[in-house]
């Protein structure tokens, strides 16, 4: 594994939510890798391993270009195999759905919105309408939330379950995926399909972005942003300059995650309330606009400003 290349520069700490919370180098990629270089047992680094949000900011900061999040996922798998966090593994395994026999979707464009956005039907209708302008986009029946959780935790996904998730997607030419980790995996599993981050795609629609103002704080979905950083940073930078809105980008131009959703919900280690406060710190804004439904739920908990999903900048679905 590439952790042997870490020489302890501390750059990964600068955008790391778990380090920010703990202020303890043990809770950072550097701390995990240095511990391993000094013969730490997996059990000794397990708390830090499972605190990582896999937001991907550190991958961009590492001057040694270590695949930090990839290494952490591998280490999580190894931790489970050596008997660490048995209860957590069991719980995630129990969430992995039984394979179903889903027919191929009869659509070129499919949206995988995730459970949180699906629980907001009015917003989801707008999302679907906004993404159907060129070709009708249909909603996937299977959100793959269990698969995203297993990917995040490092739990093995059975071939049957993976197949049942992928089979209905095989015919599509384009997929819009809300979850950044799922997006990353789908790029490997469906290399011939155009795979787009849902939030990023919505943020490219001028009918939405022209409604952003300098009184808005715009929350970029961190994982997808970091995954395609070279492309996304230019886009969001332009958005920031054009509309004057604030964003959750830090000085390194990495997106600060809310820590909402996924493994941190099941096994809370990072305080999403504190993350939200840090995102808001110093920004005097009237609205918070989110790309990701889970981020919206987390920011709404702070009870400070109205929180809107970006699709809700469109008042009615039939305005599209």
């Amino acid at each position, binding site marked *: 594994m590439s952790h042997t290349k870490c*020489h*302890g*520069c501390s*750059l990964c700490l600068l955008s790391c939510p778990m380090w920010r919370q703990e*202020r303890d180098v043990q809770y950072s990629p550097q701390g995990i890798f*240095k511990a391993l270089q*000094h013969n730490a047992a997996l059990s000794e680094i397990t708390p830090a391993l499972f605190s990582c949000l896999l937001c991907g900011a550190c991958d961009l*900061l590492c001057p040694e270009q270590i695949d930090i999040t990839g290494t952490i996922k591998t280490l999580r798998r190894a931790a489970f195999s050596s008997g660490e966090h048995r209860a957590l593994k069991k719980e995630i395994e129990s969430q992995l759905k039984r394979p179903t026999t889903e027919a191929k979707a009869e659509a070129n464009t499919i949206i995988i919105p995730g459970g949180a956005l699906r629980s907001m039907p009015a917003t989801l209708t707008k999302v679907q309408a906004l993404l159907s302008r060129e070709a009708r986009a249909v909603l996937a029946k299977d959100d793959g939330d269990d698969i995203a959780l297993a990917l995040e935790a490092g739990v093995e996904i059975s071939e049957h379950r993976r197949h049942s998730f992928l089979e209905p997607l095989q015919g599509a030419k384009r997929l819009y995926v809300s979850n950044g980790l799922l997006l990353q995996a789908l790029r490997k599993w469906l290399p011939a399909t155009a795979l787009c981050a849902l939030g990023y795609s919505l943020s490219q629609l001028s009918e939405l972005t022209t409604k952003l103002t300098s009184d808005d704080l715009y929350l970029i979905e961190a994982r997808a942003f970091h995954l395609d950083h070279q492309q996304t940073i230019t886009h969001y*930078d332009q958005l920031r300059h054009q509309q004057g809105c604030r964003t959750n980008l830090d000085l390194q*131009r990495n997106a600060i995650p809310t820590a909402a959703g996924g493994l941190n919900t099941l096994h809370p280690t990072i305080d999403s309330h504190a993350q939200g406060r840090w995102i808001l710190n110093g920004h005097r804004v009237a609205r918070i606009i989110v790309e990701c439904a889970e981020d919206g739920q987390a920011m709404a908990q702070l009870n400070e400003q109205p929180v809107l999903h970006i699709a809700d900048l469109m008042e009615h679905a039939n305005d599209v």
Partner: protein
Amino acid sequence: MNNQNSTYPRSTHGAPPPCPVAADALQGIPRQQTNPERWQGEQWASFVSALQQAGVELRSAQHNTGTYVTDAGGLAYGMPHGVVIARNAPQIAALMQLAQQYRVPVTTRGGGLTTEGESVAFGGVLLDMTGMSRVRHIDKAALTVRTEGGIFWHLLAESLRREGLDYLSAPLNLTSSVGGTLGVGGIDVNSSKHGCSADQALALQVVTPTGEIVECSDEENAELFQRVILGYGQFGIITEATLRVRPYTPLRMHYFYYGSLRDAVEDLMRIDRTQTCDYSGILTMMDKAITLLVAFDSDEREAAFLKHQRKTLRGYGELPFAIRTAAYYALRPWRLKEALYLYQRKRELFPDLQPAHHMQGGEMIDRTVVFSRAVWKHWGGRQMVIPDIASSADKFVASVERGNAVCKKYFPHYTLYCVGIKLRAEHQAHYELSCIPPDAEGWAYGCEFEPMLGDTHHSRDQLQSFKNEIYDIGVDLGTSYYRFGGMMKGYIRRALGDEVVDKHLEMKRQADPAMILNRNVIF
């Protein structure tokens, strides 16, 4: 061995060393070698037990201590017996009281960006100050910030920027900590305007080597303040600092290119004297492509400089310099390899000095990030050797030229980084026994000599010889150094003289009777 009746810890070889800053000061080992002797752990078990009773968490597993095995220099290696993560001043005070009682060395570490092993613990306790890295309070009206000492400059900048503010000056490498920097000086490309980073400190909360928590400033406990600022961690641990800050401004950058080191250095010093720019510094690729960086906080300053000062500079614009350099190498085809290196280096480095997402309308909006990332990407590595010379203005050209000759002798590729440091008359007391040379007036000048080591293996002896040869220039010319602690402390007495060293040694013995705080950094 019982050290309790000694004013200074005994060497395991017998008698205590006569002078801890002699040329061969590293306690029983010759100057060409590097690491000081490891503390042998006398009374460690009793100390640990006392710490536990005091409620101070100490980690001693190998994977905990191993994290701190070396510093950014990557040449000094040492393991602490245990690690304490700093959490608050009372915790550190308890640690220091017990460390003093049991004569256990305590080495403080912020970003660990020392290069001479100053933040490496050769036994004893490693106190990781990054555990105290929160901003306490920003006063926008008074333009001050109160912060914990272990904070990285980058994180401080992050908080300040949310309020439209910026620090005055900080090291280019932003994983340096505030406390560590105030303890040694800190230079930035605006130090010729604002002074060294330590000059922005207005007040400190310090835990003394004997475990008292003291607030100090130039008005309150002034003597402690003067000793801790630029004190190389000898007189106290900075747990909190109040710093002067300023309104944030983006940067308007200009680069001028030189083929002559002397011309560039003379131009740098001249524009500093005119005080017509806000940032200035020199960065070189060997002595073949020398870049004078000049930058401004406002359009007005930029326009005035371009109108009145630009014509006095002997540097070229990018294109004329490229043509001139190409012509130089066309006439010297046997140096093709060097020409290719310069070309490749420029291609890799320049885009990272103006990345689109940190620029806006031709202005650099995040210098804090751009420089720091470029430093790590293009100058960082597993080993970093950065000997330097800090001189008065009149000795600077000679220092740079002679240091450059040494670089050339040892390495095919290297960089020089030169900046001016405006001196503050009211801070004269802070500068005693520091990188600021005693004979400097108005401005001091620093030059770092950094070989591009890359993945090439160099023996520690070769690197140490290189450093020594640079520092010998300083002794010859009568200068100071920025990095005179740790492995290079054998130069302190020769460079700065017996009188001031003896004075500080006596003060250290009074402040730290067991001589435990940051042992071997200076004393």
